[in-house]
C-alpha cells in the first residue's frame, strides 16, 4: 500500500509560509550590504514610510526604503516566478519546463537591453536624479514589452487557426530563446567598451534586486495579482490536462481556453518579474518541484502555495546572501544558479523514478 498522502498537508505548509513571510520581510529590511539596522530603528523607519512618523536621520531612511523595496520586490519576484513555473510545468505536463521556455526571460532581457542602449544605464545614479522621473521605469517597461513580444512571437509561431500544440510551443520557445540569446551576446560583445552599459546588461543577466523603487514593487505585484486571479479557472483544469488533451476535453474541460489562460497568466507574472529584477534562473523550476515533493501534484494546492512559497524562498536566499557576504553580496541569479543547480541535480538523483504511462 503506497501513500497517496503527501508529506505535508497543503494547508499546513501554506500556514507556515504565511507565518514565515512577515518576519522574513522584516529581517530583509534590517540586513543589507551596509550593515544591520536595529529593530527599533527599522520599525520607526517603516512607520515613516507609511507616513505615521518622523523619518530616520541622515541616509538611514533612504537605506531603509531601498531595502524595503528590495524586500518587497524580491517577495513579488519569487512568488511570480514560482507561480509561473507551476503553470508552465502543468501546461507542458513536464517538470523540466520553466517560464523561460515561453520566451519570457529572453524577451525581457532583449527589451531591457534595448532600453539601456537608448537611455543609458540605470542604478543609483539614475535613482538619485531629481528629474529622473519615470526614466527609472523605462528599463522595466521595455523589459515587460520585450517579454510579452517574445511570448506573442512564440505563441504565433506555434499556433495554427487559434490553437497551439504543446510540443510545438516547447520547440518554438527553445528556438526563439536561442535567437534572442545570440542577439544579446552580439549586443554585449559590441558594447564591451562601454563600462556603464555593459555593467547594466550584466546586472540584468544575473538579476538584480538592488536600487528598486516603489514602482518596481507595484509592477511585479500587479502582474502577480492578475495571474492569481486566473487561478480558480486553472487549478482543477491543469490536473485534468495531465491525463492528456483528449481526456481533459472528454471530461468537459474547454482545453483551448485553459491553455490560453495558463499561458497568459504564466507569461504576465514572469514578464513582470523579469522586467523588474532581470533574470533569476532556476527559481521557477526549483520551487514548483519542492512544493510538489512536499504537497503532491494537485494544482489546487500547488498554485496557491507557489505565491508564498516563491516569496519565502527568494527572500530567504537573499537574506543568507546578504548576511553571509555583506557588501560582496552576489546577484540573486548567481546565488540561485549556485544553489538551485546542485539542488536540482540532487533532486533528480534522489527522486529518479520511471515515468509511467498507461
Amino acid at each position: 500500500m503506497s501513500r497517496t498522502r503527501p508529506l505535508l498537508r497543503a494547508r499546513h505548509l501554506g500556514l507556515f509560509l504565511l507565518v514565515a513571510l512577515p518576519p522574513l520581510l522584516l529581517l530583509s529590511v534590517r540586513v543589507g550590504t551596509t550593515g544591520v539596522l536595529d529593530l527599533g530603528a527599522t520599525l520607526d523607519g517603516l512607520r515613516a514610510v507609511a507616513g505615521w512618523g518622523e523619518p530616520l536621520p541622515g541616509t538611514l531612511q533612504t537605506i531603509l526604503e531601498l531595502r524595503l523595496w528590495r524586500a518587497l520586490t524580491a517577495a513579488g519576484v519569487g512568488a511570480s516566478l514560482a507561480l509561473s513555473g507551476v503553470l508552465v510545468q502543468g501546461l507542458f505536463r513536464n517538470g523540466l519546463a520553466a517560464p523561460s521556455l515561453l520566451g519570457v526571460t529572453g524577451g525581457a532581457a532583449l527589451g531591457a537591453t534595448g532600453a539601456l542602449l537608448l537611455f543609458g544605464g540605470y542604478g543609483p545614479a539614475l535613482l538619485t536624479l531629481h528629474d529622473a522621473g519615470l526614466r527609472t521605469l523605462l528599463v522595466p517597461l521595455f523589459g515587460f514589452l520585450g517579454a510579452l513580444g517574445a511570448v506573442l512571437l512564440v505563441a504565433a509561431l506555434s499556433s495554427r487557426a487559434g490553437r497551439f500544440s504543446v510540443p510545438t510551443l516547447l520547440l518554438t520557445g527553445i528556438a526563439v530563446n536561442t535567437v534572442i540569446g545570440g542577439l544579446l551576446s552580439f549586443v554585449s560583445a559590441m558594447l564591451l567598451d562601454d563600462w556603464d552599459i555593459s555593467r547594466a546588461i550584466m546586472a540584468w543577466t544575473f538579476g538584480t534586486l538592488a536600487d528598486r523603487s516603489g514602482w518596481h514593487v507595484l509592477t511585479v505585484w500587479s502582474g502577480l495579482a492578475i495571474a492569481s486571479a486566473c487561478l480558480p479557472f486553472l487549478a482543477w483544469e491543469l490536473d485534468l490536462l495531465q491525463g492528456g488533451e483528449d481526456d481533459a476535453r472528454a471530461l468537459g474541460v474547454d482545453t483551448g481556453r485553459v491553455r490560453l489562460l495558463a499561458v497568459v497568466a504564466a507569461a504576465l507574472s514572469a514578464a513582470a518579474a523579469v522586467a523588474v529584477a532581470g533574470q533569476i534562473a532556476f527559481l521557477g523550476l526549483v520551487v514548483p518541484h519542492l512544493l510538489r515533493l512536499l504537497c503532491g501534484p494537485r494544482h489546487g494546492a500547488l498554485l496557491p502555495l507557489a505565491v508564498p512559497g516563491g516569496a519565502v524562498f527568494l527572500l530567504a536566499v537573499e537574506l543568507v546572501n546578504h548576511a553571509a557576504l555583506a557588501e560582496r553580496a552576489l546577484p540573486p541569479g548567481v546565488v540561485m544558479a549556485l544553489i538551485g543547480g546542485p539542488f536540482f541535480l540532487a533532486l533528480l538523483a534522489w527522486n529518479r523514478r520511471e515515468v509511467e504511462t498507461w
Partner: protein
Amino acid sequence: MKLLAAHDLCFDYPGPVPAVAGVSLELSAGELLVVCGPNGSGKSTLLRLLGGLLVPARGEVALLGRPLAGLSAAERARRVARVPQSLVSVPEVSVEHFALAGRYAHVRRFRGPADNDRRAVASALVATEVDDLAQRSLGELSGGQRQRVLLARALASEAPILLVDEPTTGLDPEHQVRALQLIAGQRSDGRGAIVVTHDLNLASQFATSVLLLDRGRLVRRGPPADVLRPEVLAPVYGEHLYYGRMPAPDGRPFVLPWLDPPVRA
C-alpha cells in the same frame, strides 16, 4: 428518443484514405454496440467523432436529440462519458480523487464538489468494485484495476452514453470478461454503450449489435451472429480465420486466427 444518432459522418486525415466515410448509426438505451474492424479501419476516429473530440468534415451527431455541434464542452460531458484505453500520464492521486474528475462538468466553480457529486463517485466506485481501493494511489494499480477505475470515473459523470475504447487490451481473459461484464451491466438504468474493440469474440458474447468497419466505411451492422460469418468477415479480415460456435445453449459464433486454412475453390 435515441441516446445517440449519427448521420453520414465523414472525416479525413491528411492523406489518401478517408478515416471515416459516410457512417451512420444509432444507439438506444440498454444497447451495447461494439465497433469492430481491422487496424486503420476508423474505429477510434469514429469514437472521437461521436464524443465530440473531432469535428466531422460532413454529417452530424445528436446526443439525446441535441446536435453535438451546439453543445458546450460541459453539456457534452454530461451526456457522454469516455473511457479511454490509457492516459498520457498517471497522476499521483488517489483513486477516489481521480474518479471525482468525472464530475468536472457538474461541479460549480467556487463551490467545489457537492454531496451529490460525492455520492455519484462513491456509487461509481462500488459499481466497478474498486471502492476498497478508494484511497490507493493510481500508480500502483494492476491493469485490471486501472481499467475499472477509468470506468468508475466515466460512471461518476452519470452520463447516459458511454464511449469505451479498447477496454480489454492488455488484460488476461478473466479480467477481459469482468471488464465487459461491468460495462454491459451499466445498460440497465437507461444507459447505452459503444465499445471499440479488436476482439470479435468478446463482441460476439456481449454486444447487442456489432458494427463492422473497413477503411472508414460501414460494412455491416447487426446482431453478432449476422456479422461473425465468413461471407462478411473474409472480405475485411482475409482468409486466415476459423469459424466456430460455442457449445449449446447459447451457441454464439466465434472466430480464431488460422494459420493454414483450406484453400477455397
